[in-house]
């Protein structure tokens, strides 16, 4: 039985510039029905049909899970990326018809928590928009610490401050404001769960300090989507389907496999869910692993690859697809 998600036909109902880097997109169902309910921390995969190319990127849903008339996502423009965010910023306008996946949650709240301590960096704020709305509606105990480069790039900082007041603390890099992480982590009541979403350096720092200060691993949750990185083109043989494909510079391996008419299952397209894990049959060259799914040992074994985010450089690669 195949896994993966059901698709939703939507129309862009609004496009709102939030600041110089971030734009918010609103989706409604084309048939006028309500969208599926979701839980705070869920994402959807947005299909971007850009001429001949289709890119599929995951974005956290940032609206309140209590309101399913529309979904909202926030997209940060990445000028060095593969063009997904640029496509969204430059091409997508209200009335544009798009296809998105059903929501999937790989960054779920642990509802047993006595308190939810949330740490956000930059655009990593988006899953917390939905999670705080969900918790606030039910009297949940949470505290959000949000680091941004400048006040003007503090996406939704004003909204959050207004909604939750003292439960939100802001830190601005340009004013040299820093989270006192050790003190923060050591003053939380027993039963607190920690959630962190932001740049990978920040996630690594928070996880390391939490472990050193005695936070058990199951109390530390992190959202760690890797965006597929561009890279040198490479050739791949798909042994099961008997196809030879070429992965373009701006294309992910998964997208190239799909473009050849082979559809591996996926949920996140960000190297965390494990669905598209693919066996390597033969290779002559080096893997560029970018996922957070396979263990280091598996990375070194050269027997598996996550085609959503990882690449290859070398003479030949044969995959079991």
């Amino acid at each position, binding site marked *: 039985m195949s896994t993966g998600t059901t698709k939703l036909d939507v129309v862009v109902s609004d496009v709102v510039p939030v600041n110089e880097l971030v734009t918010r997109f609103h989706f409604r169902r084309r048939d006028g029905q309500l969208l599926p309910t979701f839980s705070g921390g869920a994402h959807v995969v947005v299909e971007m049909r850009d001429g001949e190319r289709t890119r599929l990127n995951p974005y956290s849903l940032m609206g309140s899970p209590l309101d399913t008339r529309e979904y909202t996502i926030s997209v940060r423009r990445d000028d060095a990326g593969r063009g997904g965010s640029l496509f969204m910023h430059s091409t997508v306008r209200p009335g544009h018809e798009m296809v998105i996946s059903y929501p999937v949650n790989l960054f779920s709240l642990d509802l047993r928590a006595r308190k939810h301590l949330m740490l956000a960096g930059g655009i990593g704020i988006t899953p917390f928009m939905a999670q705080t709305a969900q918790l606030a509606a039910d009297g949940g105990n949470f505290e959000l610490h949000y680091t941004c480069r400048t006040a003007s790039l503090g996406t939704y900082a004003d909204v959050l401050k207004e909604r939750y007041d003292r439960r939100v603390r802001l830190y601005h890099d340009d004013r040299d404001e820093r989270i006192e992480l050790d003190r923060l982590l*050591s003053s939380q*009541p*027993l*039963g*607190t769960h920690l959630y962190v979403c932001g740049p990978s350096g920040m996630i690594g720092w928070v996880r390391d300090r939490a*472990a050193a*200060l*005695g936070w058990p691993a199951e*109390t530390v949750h992190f959202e760690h989507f890797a965006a597929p990185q561009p890279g040198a083109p490479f050739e791949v043989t798909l042994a099961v389907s008997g196809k030879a494909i070429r992965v373009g510079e701006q294309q992910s391996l998964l997208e190239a496999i799909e473009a050849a008419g082979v559809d591996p299952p996926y949920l996140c397209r960000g190297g965390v869910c494990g669905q598209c894990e693919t066996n390597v049959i033969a290779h002559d060259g080096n893997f560029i692993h970018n996922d957070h799914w396979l263990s280091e040992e598996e990375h070194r074994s050269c027997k598996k690859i996550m085609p959503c985010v990882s690449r290859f450089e070398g003479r030949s690669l044969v995959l079991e697809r």
Partner: protein
Amino acid sequence: MAAKSIISRPVYGTLSPQPGKHHLFVADADGALAITDLAAKAPDGFFADAHIIFIPGNEGQHVAALEALKPAQFYQGPSFASALPRLKQTLANAHMGLRPYLAGTEGLIGQAMQAALEAGIDHTSIQTEHRGSLARRVQCVHCKGITESVTTQPATCSHCGLLLLVRDHYSRRLAAFQGVCINAEDRSEIPPAEEIFR
């Protein structure tokens, strides 16, 4: 130790020092030896942030050895029940960074873990080491009463009197093994009781 069993039967480890800000030990009788063994591996100053709750039991041993570790707090009490209010208070006021270590009989480990779970600590982060008796706490699935210190198979429920097969199926929430009427289908079948949980 227990023979080959089923997955719900608890598995105990060996106490080892964990990263953390505070260390809470709960032990009975020979469980003290698990703490002194850990002390041999612990970094200097480890016990300066430690609280030991100890129930020495009838033999009354090991108190001096634990006091010699110079924990920040030391308590000894006559029974787990007498230590429980203190344990609950400690957990209620604790912060993240507190690490629990439980050592001794299965009954002690199970009941201290129950208190820790209720305080919001996940069982996977609790260090345990079994020392001493394998006597079981058994919940009668029929009347729900818990019989303490069960050593025989089958065993009689101290509440409703049914003859119970003591299974390896274990509930952390109840801190008890499951007891199911062994002759429910035909009460005239009375298997002999053997002492097997010592």
